[in-house]
């Protein structure tokens, strides 16, 4: 389990993490989403033991990660801004990681060569961004990690390679119980792979559920009232209300059943519950947190 309790981090006068409470169960794929500047990358760096928190705790498997080489040996990461040694090729990096990570598996590295069609002898600096990311995946997965922490992992990869990478990760989750934490803005893709989601904003986790719970606890209703519905919708707690003709679309933070019951006192011609995508959940949650889409005329 990955767990942070009241994690606080300041950079000078700026509070980047304002008490992050996060729990990632073992063997799950956790999607960490949030607007730009929410603190996702800072949080990830704490999980990797790069930053030391000013307050609170960061634990993986019940152990503090800071200055814990034995624990860090079980963590592999693909950061948003990865680094390779100058002039190094994949083979050089492989040898380096092999000497650093006790769990590095040569056989796995050889098997993954089939998945990643890259020239091992070519300097990594000469690769495109997508190819470098593939190399990063290749090396990270070869370390046989128990925890895989990814920041924008598939950004820059072509669709085929995206599927390949997700497939490899999911097989690790299934076969080895690897715990994966993914931070990404590509919510449509995350929705396919994640079973837990944490929404982060302004240095805090504002919402954390399993994806199914999240989808169950937020509902989109399309409603047509018999009479004018303006007065009605204003009295209903909704994250978002929009109208097209007589059809009102309500996003409400409750289950579908509760929402329908809530509308029962009112005369409605039609009430229909529609499934919400993760992207919609995110947008409307952020809108509730004063980070919505602004109607600006330019």
């Amino acid at each position: 389990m990955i767990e942070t309790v009241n994690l606080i981090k300041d950079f000078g006068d700026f509070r980047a993490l304002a008490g992050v409470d996060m729990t990632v169960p073992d063997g799950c794929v956790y999607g960490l989403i949030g607007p730009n500047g929410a603190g996702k990358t800072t949080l990830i760096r704490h999980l990797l033991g790069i930053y030391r928190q000013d307050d609170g705790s960061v634990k993986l498997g019940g152990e503090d990660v800071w200055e814990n080489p034995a624990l860090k040996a079980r963590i592999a990461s693909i950061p948003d801004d990865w680094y390779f040694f100058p002039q190094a090729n994949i083979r050089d990096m492989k040898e380096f990681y092999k000497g650093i990570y006790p769990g590095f598996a040569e056989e796995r590295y050889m098997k993954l060569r089939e998945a990643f069609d890259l020239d091992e002898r070519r300097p990594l600096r000469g690769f495109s961004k997508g190819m470098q990311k593939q190399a990063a995946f290749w090396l990270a997965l070869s370390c046989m990690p128990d925890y895989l922490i990814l920041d924008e992992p598939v950004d820059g990869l072509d669709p085929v390679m995206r599927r390949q990478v997700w497939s490899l990760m999911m097989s690790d989750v299934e076969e080895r119980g690897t715990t994966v934490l993914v931070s990404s803005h590509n919510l449509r893709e995350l929705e396919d792979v994640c079973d837990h989601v944490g929404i982060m904003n302004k240095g805090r986790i504002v919402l954390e559920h399993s994806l199914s719970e999240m989808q169950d606890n937020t509902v989109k209703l399309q409603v047509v009232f018999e009479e004018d519905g303006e007065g009605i919708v204003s009295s209903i707690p909704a994250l978002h209300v929009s109208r097209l003709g007589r059809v009102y679309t309500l996003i409400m933070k409750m289950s579908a059943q509760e929402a329908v019951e809530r509308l029962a006192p009112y005369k409605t011609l039609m009430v229909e519950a529609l499934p919400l995508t993760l992207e919609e959940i995110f947008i409307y949650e952020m809108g509730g947190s004063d980070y919505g889409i602004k109607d600006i005329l330019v």
Partner: protein
Amino acid sequence: MASKISWFNRTLYKKNLTGCWPLWVITSILACLVPLSVWAGADGISKASVITALQVVCGGNPFFLNIYGLIAVAITWRFLHQPRRTLMMHALPLSRNCIFLTGVLSSITVILIPYAVACVILIFLSIPVGVPASAMLQSAAVIFGELLICVAMGTFCAMITGSTVMMVVLYFVFNYLAVFTDSLISSYSEGFLFGIPGNNFDGLEFLSPMVYVGDSVTLESGVGNSTYLQGRLTLAVYGLLSILLILLCWLIYRRRSSESAGEAISVRILRPVFLCGVTVYSALTLGRIFYTILFGFFYGTQYYRLIPIICCMAAGGLIGFLVASMLLKKSFRVFDTKHLAGAAATVAGCIIFCVLLRADIGGQVGYVPARDEVSSVTVTVNSDTFSGNYVIRGDEDALMEQVMDLQRELIAEKDELTQPGYDSYLSSYYDYSIVWYKYKLVSGETVERNYRFVVTSEPLRGIMESLRTGAAEIRRLHLDQDEFVLEGVWLGDAYAQEQLGSVQTSELLAAIRADMEDGAMPMTDMDVFDLSMEYIYRDPDRSESSAASLYDCYRLAIPQTMERTRAYLRSIGYDSFVLSN
């Protein structure tokens, strides 16, 4: 495979070495030239030539380390100064202890490789003539001791900054700061305090390790082909201090935040120190430069005018403050109210500094020791107005009274003597006199004063001239004064001189002394003279190793009143006296 020892990682160590292999390979090739040049030299390989080579290596070692050693340390710790690389390194399953120790050992190894290569070749070449093992071991001690200092200081600079450029700058600042500070203190004391010489503040050099150890530790030749290591204790002390400094670096690194990569100063508590330090040294350095450029032509550079120097120091200090603020903030935008207080403090500090110095709170300017405090005095005069350069030394009451009167008169005329117009920019060289006092006190201390002036008043002129009469003038012969070594006596003027032998010299000096004791004095005109005597003055208060730095040249034109002297000179064939009477 990953190393099982948690304080050292073989893979990282190997990576650190292979990552800079062109550096140590090229340096090793160049280092090979040292033993090969000995072998191919005119004298060939011998114990003596090997020892000479070792002495040269030891002498040049600090310079070599300041370049190659510093580069090696900078390469090892560059990951701390590149944000992405820092993130990668600190994400690895390696403890900071492991990264630190492996890094230090890597630095030392990279620096030692060229030495080792050269040493092996030297040993191999000197086998036929006998390896001077003792000299080689002593050289190894010097090299390793100075290497430790370089690694410790370089690592410390790498730890406290987040930039490789700043690391290099700080390294040289720390190594030369004391010497530079000494120079600044000297120049400001001379500029503000009439008569206070700049060399009063020697003794800070020990704070600049590579300079101090480089000067103090040498491989000296002994009897035969033996050598001895001068400055062993200094080397040992600084070696130990270097180890302690490395331990401090380890403590700093353990607490260093990864996000400080790229910062000018990565240790938060040192940032105000950096800001103040840069501000102060900018005020002092740029203040002097601005003053010389802007006001030197009008006021001269010997003595500072208060308002102009305050303005120049304030300008220099503000520049330093703003530059340091920009470096710390990593932005040019420091012209805001937040930095206003600092700027105001800088200006106020400059004003206070200058006013306090000019006020001479310690009363140093007017200080003349009492007669009973002084055991002896040495006065060195450089004055073309009063015929040449000479040194007077003694402890007689009459001499003391003469020199102290002169000093009091100079102090009394201080305001006039420090006016613009009495400086090298406006006055010709020949109007100048420089009088350097050195009182040795009964307590063992010394008091030095240095006065540079143009004679402006009759009392001053009278006193200056009195130093050239009577007992003071006879002292110019430096008879019975072992600290003066007569280099030689030459007959004739500047264009045709003949050196006298030792017997003739003794007899001539006796004749001159006898005439002077009878009151017959020579004329001492620099352009026209019958004979000249040159002396080297070795200050008994200085150590053996410091060079004698004073020379006395006594040029005499012999008048008719000096009968004995004239008679002797004629007896040895000299009759073309420049004075007819």
